[in-house]
């Protein structure tokens, strides 16, 4: 992997003054992705699935090819196991509204971790409100680890659904979804693996995870905004009721009832985002061309510099696993006396983009504040991707070392 060549594919990275370290929020898009979408619009733009003319047939092929490519990317058996959605949040809501409301009942337990993203918390709160199921939380150790023992203790025979991010967007830690899957399957339950933060950084294999559902967002893995995916086991999709309803997801519509199209179309109501899917497919192709080995290697190099650099600074607290290789490119930290928002604002004057705040993980912030005596219920987070360089990492550490000075200490 030649990082200089790769960076040329990302026009927004051309200005060396800027350091973009907010990749866990959204990634940048290479020209290949933009070009694939533009080409769709310029040569075959039509409403897929229904047209009997050339452009619509091409558009349908492009859309279904994108589905097949996405299925292969996550390790699914069959393209029909991929439902295209807007983003990971919608994927998780789809599971909650369709599977959750239909198959969970009073007294069942839903188990999630305290480090879940709000998008993997609120839908389950909704399911619990409406069904009488109970939401339980598993808390990690201080460094973010969840062990098999902790899981065994948390899973009871009432646990019918586990929601677990494969990689935490705050700590970067990889969670033991395989063990969780095993335990919940013994109860005839299912596991919803939220892959929003893992899919960009590591080879996905839903089979190996034992995942019944797997959610992800295109925009976090070089794809466009507005497209994401839900992997779901075919037999689950078959028995789940539809969620959104309208055009394209039906067979017959009578005035008072309807029958539904086959899986996965049953879950894709209305005109599909075909150009978004084409963009996602181009992003997948781009990632596969580089290869996850090379991607991880580069991320580890950069993350190590950031992690160890911050660790060595006085007044800086770095969270999560002591091994920077276990951070999936994410380094979360705080600086004594400095509110994360002020940190991010002054770093912005150095053209360094990081995120600060609760990271859509307020329960985790609360947990960390208590366990780790954090000053504020918020952190600063640098998140790197394979197109980031070691020089950027060094510049970042250098800048962080000056933050306390800029803030008057």
């Amino acid at each position: 992997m030649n990082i200089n060549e790769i960076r040329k594919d990302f026009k927004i990275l051309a200005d060396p003054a800027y350091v973009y370290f907010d990749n866990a929020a959204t990634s940048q898009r290479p020209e290949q992705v933009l070009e694939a979408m533009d080409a769709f619009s310029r040569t075959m733009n039509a409403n897929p699935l229904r047209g009997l003319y050339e452009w619509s047939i091409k558009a349908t092929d492009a859309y279904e090819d994108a589905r097949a490519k996405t299925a292969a990317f996550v390790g699914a058996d069959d393209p029909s196991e991929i439902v295209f959605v807007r983003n990971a949040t919608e994927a998780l809501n789809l599971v909650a509204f369709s599977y959750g409301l239909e198959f969970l009942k009073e007294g069942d337990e839903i188990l999630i971790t305290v480090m879940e993203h709000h998008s993997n918390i609120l839908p389950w709160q909704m399911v619990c409100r409406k069904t009488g199921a109970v939401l339980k939380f598993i808390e990690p150790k201080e460094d973010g680890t969840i062990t098999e023992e902790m899981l065994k203790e948390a899973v009871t025979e009432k646990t019918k659904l586990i929601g677990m991010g494969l990689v935490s967007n705050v700590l970067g830690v990889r969670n033991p979804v395989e063990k969780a899957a095993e335990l919940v399957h013994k109860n005839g339950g299912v596991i919803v693996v939220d892959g929003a933060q893992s899919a960009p950084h590591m080879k996905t294999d839903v089979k190996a995870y034992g995942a019944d559902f797997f959610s992800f967002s295109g925009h976090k893995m070089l794809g466009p905004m507005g497209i994401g995916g839900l992997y779901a086991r075919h037999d689950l999709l078959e028995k789940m009721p539809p969620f959104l309803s309208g055009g394209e997801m039906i067979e017959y519509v009578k005035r008072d009832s309807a029958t539904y199209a086959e899986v996965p179309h049953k879950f894709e109501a209305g005109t599909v985002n075909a150009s978004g899917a084409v963009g996602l497919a181009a992003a997948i192709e781009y990632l596969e061309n580089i290869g996850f080995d090379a991607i991880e290697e580069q991320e580890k190099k950069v993350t190590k510099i950031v992690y160890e650099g911050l660790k060595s600074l006085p007044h800086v607290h770095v969270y999560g696993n002591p091994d920077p290789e276990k951070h999936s490119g994410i380094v979360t930290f705080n600086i004594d006396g400095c509110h994360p928002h002020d940190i991010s604002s002054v770093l912005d004057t150095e053209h360094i983009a990081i995120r600060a705040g609760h990271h859509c993980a307020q329960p985790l912030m609360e947990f960390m504040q208590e366990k780790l005596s954090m000053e504020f219920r918020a952190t600063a987070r640098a998140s790197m991707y394979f197109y980031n360089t070691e020089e950027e990492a060094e510049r970042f550490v250098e800048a962080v070392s000056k933050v306390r000075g800029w803030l008057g200490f």
Partner: protein
Amino acid sequence: MELKNLYREIVNEHNLHPVHKGDIEDPDMILNGVNPSCGDDIYLQLKFDENGNVSEGSFNGSGCAISQASADMMLDLIIGLPKEEALEKAEIFMGMVRGTVDEEKIEELDEAASLADIAHMPARVKCATLGWKTMQRMLRDGENEKK
């Protein structure tokens, strides 16, 4: 003003060495103001004299430097003023960060005028206005959490 200079010249001082942070004795009004998206969280406390002028004031709580400094500067400005004038200052401050009032008016804010450039940082506007909005809710809308 470039943000780093703004911190250096004004914000840091008010944040690290606030004059009005703490509690006052037996306040007439107490109100909590929050910015959920930032986690800023302050308690504003005010006391009035017989003419309805703000006689004492303080704030407590935690938040970013801008929210803290802005609240401290606000109290600098309004202590001693009649309620109506305090509210007028808040109006000017809101107009300033929205970019809808002119230079001359802004000068009436004394030191708080230095936060004018926050108007170009929409994400920080809420931090800068937290204290002011809380004061408006108190004096204009009569909200009071004192039991």
